[in-house]
């Protein structure tokens, strides 16, 4: 008999009050008066009365909680809602409870026995609520893709004596069979197979293979030559291995005249050219070949970096998508070389305004509703919170960027910096090599049906057919245990010869990639640890269940490794051997379920020639769905004003400029004790564009991180968009004290409709800029990732088909090492009387600026033409400036510095002054550059500019240090709170206070 234990708070519970406020923010007709909650554990195992009592004691804090087998409802409530997980969804709380009972009661849970957690909310309204209100509350509490909700009115609750018992046990028909797939099909049927997946016996489909017709034909030819049909395992494996997600086909394959494709020509090509030019000063150690890229930290350590995206899963389950995004990229760090230790997490979200009420549906019948913009934001923010905080990795640098075109698919960026000794047991740590005869060992989590088809479905746009099983919930603690055991212990004992992470494509990708080193493998899937019985071989092989690493272990080391992992509570199993047979073989028990030549598996994919087309008018085409519709009315907005005070305050309240402290504060950014410049700077708690960390506590060296993106420019000029992103990321790092000669870059291309030649043209332009500007700055790319189909295809509230494509987005991340972290410069002004300088020329181009967007003129190409185009980047001039700036920093000449970016000079000025708690007097008179009107000087986002404050006693030395660059004094830091700006005619055009500006800066997101 299963039993239930309810844990309820015996003291006032903060969670209840917070929930109540949340419900009342949903726009209910009747307000919620009170909320109380209970945590429920369903123990699916026979326990006697004594054991149950002890179980309650183990699960409740005697001082603050009560444990009971009966749910104790409050005296008055209208509604009880129980939220639990669907069968098979990772239930971390249930898992911990099970472990607690197992250890505390000294009982063993059989594989089929388990503990399941759920939570009951009792809700009392001010008066009897209507059905609509109750539905709103229920829907706000759960995500139907992963969770279940049971609702009872108080009368039913009382009548039934509580909530109904639900045991969310996975029940799979035990049909662990392998089927052959017939490819003797018409082209149309083949296309359906590629798009919808292998047909089950009942006529349903398994989910997308994302194999195009020419791929399927190549597969058919291979098997025709073999004289047999492929098994489902083989077809699924090829689909994973050849997917855009894994092989990056769009970047790899020829494009127009570029026979080597844009990746080899522009991205890798840039790095090769830079390394050659740097010669002995080359700091790259491992680029593009491993799970992360690595550069030199010092003579003893390497520092690694990798940024990933987890977009499609986050659209469906924002929390799960985001938590697996961050713990997933942590594994890219653990999977670098012999295993790097994660030391910093970074994040970024591209979202729609949380107030955006657009309703979207995945199906015509409007049964599958997409989550609201607000839910997506809350979910992705909470996901990084859970994943980063629980893993003990400081999450410091991050950004949030809003555009209505992210309503269909949000972008979730997650990155991890790692540290690894250069030498481990006499081996170079960045070189790994599995050897024939090595055991294939999986460590960490178990395999379930979760995360099936993640890789193939990321290679498609999001629509009705996107499988719900493609999302997983992370289990950060299982990964933390594994991570500690591997990179803090097993690695340094030299117990394994190679390691990689089990991510997209699951075992099929991880084992397949490692087997390339030896030239073959033989695996038996029956040996793989499963979460529950009944999984078919193809599912075991491609499942993307989280928290797993694959190791290559010399047979003699296995006993030692096994015992170490066991002692650390980490599950591991031998599932096969690496061979040099030239074949990938997979068995399930006695049966061979996959038998492919390694060469075909990895190189059999047909190469596609891609053709691009310069668009005629992409801008108007792609704007139909957005708020930019307002353009017409906004044309009359006057740009020439006598007073810009209000505009400045409004601008720093824009979502893309304002503070997002609610995120920064809920992410632990100080764990590991390396924090030097934190993500919130100064008295004013301004969100910084760059952070500095000391990853090795015994070394003074610091790691500078920054990033930038400019989706607002993509449709106007994708080449300049990429150039601006690169200059922005570099400039933010330089302003913080980084050396331009010691910066590496990472690229994350997130595109939409990448089979459209016009989108490909934009892509090619952006990639070309990557080459041009990376080489001009001498900043090599060391790692990257792309995500090519960020389109939503579904239905609007009125049932009409709708497609929302993200604006092409390139996130550039910069990483650099500085010799002395104490030289880092924060953005806040330090003292009244200091001089304020603008370094670099101000270009009057306003195209794509936040100011125009605020006035509703953002993407009007005609207008952009009239009032100045998209500003360009002059890398040679900027390089000189950045180099001299670094030297000035080393001489302690700079008191504060900030990169002038979104919102232009006005925004940078406000952040600097209000950030330090000062006012200031500033004049635009003779401000160098080609600007004409005041609004250009204030709000142009032209590149290559830094705003700095300098002790006036050091002004002469500073100006001398910046010789032959544009270094112009615009004013001084003031004692009181007044910030005054005057124009070239000495007229005051803005008068605001630091206090007021700070309020405006913090206001928009303060209630989240």
């Amino acid at each position: 008999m299963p039993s239930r234990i309810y844990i309820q708070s015996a003291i006032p519970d903060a969670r209840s009050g917070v929930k109540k406020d949340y419900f009342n923010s949903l726009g209910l007709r009747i307000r919620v008066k009170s909320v109380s909650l209970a945590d429920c554990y369903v123990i699916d195992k026979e326990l006697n009365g004594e054991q149950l009592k002890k179980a309650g004691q183990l699960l409740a804090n005697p001082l603050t909680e009560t444990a009971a087998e009966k749910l104790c409802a409050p005296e008055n409530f209208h509604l009880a809602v129980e939220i639990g997980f669907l069968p098979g969804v990772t239930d971390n709380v249930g898992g911990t409870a099970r472990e607690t009972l197992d250890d505390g009661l000294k009982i063993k849970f059989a594989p089929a026995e388990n503990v399941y957690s759920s939570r009951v909310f009792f809700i009392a309204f001010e008066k009897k609520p209507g059905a609509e209100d109750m539905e709103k509350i229920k829907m706000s509490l759960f995500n139907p893709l992963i969770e279940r909700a049971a609702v009872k009115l108080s009368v039913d609750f009382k009548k039934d004596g509580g909530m109904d018992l639900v045991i969310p046990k996975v029940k799979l028909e035990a049909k662990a069979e392998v089927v052959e797939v017939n490819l003797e099909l018409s082209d149309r049927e083949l296309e359906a197979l590629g798009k919808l997946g292998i047909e089950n016996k009942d006529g349903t489909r398994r989910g997308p293979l994302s194999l195009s017709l020419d791929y399927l034909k190549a597969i058919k030819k291979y098997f025709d030559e073999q004289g047999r049909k492929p098994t489902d395992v083989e077809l699924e494996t090829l689909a994973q291995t050849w997917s855009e997600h894994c092989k990056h086909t769009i970047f790899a394959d020829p494009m127009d005249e570029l026979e080597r494709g844009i990746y080899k020509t522009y991205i890798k090509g840039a790095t090769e050219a830079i390394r050659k030019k740097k010669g002995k000063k080359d700091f790259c150690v491992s680029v593009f070949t491993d799970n992360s890229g690595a550069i030199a930290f010092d003579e003893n350590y390497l520092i690694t970096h990798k940024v990933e995206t987890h977009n499609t899963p986050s659209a469906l389950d924002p929390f799960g998508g985001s938590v697996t995004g961050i713990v997933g990229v942590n594994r890219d760090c653990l999977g670098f070389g012999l295993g790097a230790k994660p030391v910093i997490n970074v994040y970024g979200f591209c979202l729609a305004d949380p107030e955006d009420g657009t309703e979207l549906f995945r199906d015509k019948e409007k049964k599958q509703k997409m989550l609201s913009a607000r839910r997506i934001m809350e979910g992705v923010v909470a996901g990084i919170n859970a994943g980063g905080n629980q893993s003990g990795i400081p999450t410091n640098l991050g950004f949030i960027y809003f555009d209505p075109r992210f309503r269909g698919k949000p972008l979730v960026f997650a990155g991890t910096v790692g540290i690894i000794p250069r030498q481990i047991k006499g081996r170079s740590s960045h070189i790994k090599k599995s050897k024939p005869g090595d055991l294939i060992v999986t460590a960490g989590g178990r395999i379930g049906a979760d995360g099936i088809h993640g890789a193939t479905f990321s290679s498609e746009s999001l629509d009705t057919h996107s499988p719900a099983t493609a999302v997983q919930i992370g289990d950060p603690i299982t990964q933390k245990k594994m991570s500690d055991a591997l990179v803090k212990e097993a690695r340094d004992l030299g117990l394994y010869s190679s390691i990689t992470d089990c991510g997209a494509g699951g075992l099929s990708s991880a084992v397949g990639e490692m087997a390339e080193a030896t030239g073959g493998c033989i695996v038996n899937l029956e040996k793989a640890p499963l979460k529950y019985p009944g999984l078919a071989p193809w599912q075991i092989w491609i499942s993307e269940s989280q928290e797993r690493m694959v190791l290559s272990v010399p047979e003699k080391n296995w006993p030692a490794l096994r015992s170490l992992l066991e002692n650390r509570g980490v599950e591991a199993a031998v599932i096969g051997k690496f061979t040099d047979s030239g074949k990938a073989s997979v068995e399930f028990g006695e049966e061979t379920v996959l038998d492919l030549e390694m060469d075909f598996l990895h190189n059999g994919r047909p190469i596609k020639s891609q053709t691009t087309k310069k668009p005629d008018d992409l801008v108007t085409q792609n704007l139909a769905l957005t708020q930019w519709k307002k353009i017409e009315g906004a044309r009359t907005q006057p740009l020439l004003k006598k007073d810009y005070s209000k505009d400045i305050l409004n601008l720093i309240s824009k979502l893309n400029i304002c503070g997002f402290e609610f995120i920064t504060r809920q992410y632990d950014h100080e764990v590991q004790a390396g924090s030097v410049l934190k993500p919130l700077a100064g008295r004013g708690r301004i969100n910084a564009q760059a952070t500095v960390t000391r990853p090795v506590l015994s070394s003074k060296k610091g790691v500078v991180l920054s990033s930038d993106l400019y989706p607002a420019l993509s449709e106007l000029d994708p080449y300049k968009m990429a150039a601006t992103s690169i200059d922005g990321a570099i400039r933010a790092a330089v302003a913080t004290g980084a050396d331009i000669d010691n910066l590496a870059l990472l690229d994350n291309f997130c595109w939409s409709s990448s089979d459209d030649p016009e989108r490909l043209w934009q892509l090619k332009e952006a990639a070309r800029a990557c080459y041009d500007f990376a080489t001009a700055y001498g900043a090599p790319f060391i790692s990257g990732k792309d995500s090519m189909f960020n389109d939503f295809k579904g239905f609007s509230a009125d049932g009409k088909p709708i497609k929302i494509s993200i604006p092409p987005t390139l996130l550039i991340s910069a990483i650099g090492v500085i010799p002395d972290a104490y030289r880092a410069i924060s953005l806040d002004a330090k003292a009244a009387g200091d001089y304020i300088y603008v370094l670099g020329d101000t270009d009057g181009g306003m195209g794509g600026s936040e100011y125009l967007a605020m006035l509703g003129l953002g993407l009007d190409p005609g207008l952009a033409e009239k009032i100045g185009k998209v500003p360009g980047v002059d890398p040679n001039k900027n390089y000189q400036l950045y180099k001299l700036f670094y030297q000035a920093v080393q001489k302690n000449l700079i008191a504060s510095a900030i990169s002038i970016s979104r919102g232009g000079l006005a925004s940078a000025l406000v952040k600097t002054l209000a950030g330090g708690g000062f006012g200031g007097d500033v004049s635009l008179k003779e401000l160098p550059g080609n600007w004409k009107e005041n609004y250009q000087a204030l709000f142009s986002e032209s590149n290559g500019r830094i705003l700095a404050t300098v002790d006036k006693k050091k002004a002469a030395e500073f100006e001398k240090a910046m010789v032959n660059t544009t270094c112009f004094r615009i004013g001084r830091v003031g004692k009181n709170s007044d910030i005054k700006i005057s124009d070239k005619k000495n007229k005051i055009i803005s008068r605001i206070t630091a206090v007021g500006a700070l309020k405006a800066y913090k206001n928009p997101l303060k209630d989240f």
Partner: protein
Amino acid sequence: MTKPKVIIFSGYGLNCEEETAYAFNLASGKAEIVHINDLVAGRKKLKNYEILAVPGGFSYGDDTGSGKAYANKLKNHLKEELNGFVLKDKLIIGICNGFQILTQTGLLPGALAANKNARYLDRWVDLKITGESPWLKGIKSLSLPIAHGEGKYFADKNILAGLKKENSIALKYVKGEICDYQDLEANPNGAMEDIAGITGYGGRVFGLMPHPERGMFFHHSPDWPVEKEKLIRAGKQLPESGPGMQVFKNAIEYFS
């Protein structure tokens, strides 16, 4: 002089063991990080150490309540060893999750409940020293960071009266330098009577929500760039240590 030996627990999601060990070593201790399972299996013995630190972290992901599952493990397997340790003239510190664990094991009274806004929070706080403890010798006030989701100290009337009688309320959140600098409220989580840390066993067992190891360097404080600029302008050297370092030094000096 032989250096006092410090054992720092690890495993199951504790995650501040390395920097805590670094702080003790910097204070001239001899720190060793020991996985809890090595104690459970008897490969390591608690009695061989002078100082026990239960560091911060996220043991068991806070599932079933912060510190609860780890404390259950300690109670199930190491109860006698812990009792033996605490009765000797030795020192114990529980930082953040470590504090939660110490209260869940019963080594310190009271409990840590969900923050008043039910959300994880990372920020700096100002602290007034209100109790007596070897850990806090010579310290009057401190500024340190907190980072937790369940840090609201709770005690019933009896416990509270006992703490007061024993002079065991060690740290209280107050409005000080950092709150003034960043315009923050004093009590970050709604803790009863602003309690940030308490002691037991005559001050030898110390539990606190703030992280002294995250305040061990000068560059840890949020206002260090301002202080740096002042020092540079005054022609002075930058210090290396931050306010948290004295806590670790005190512990080591206790044995000298």
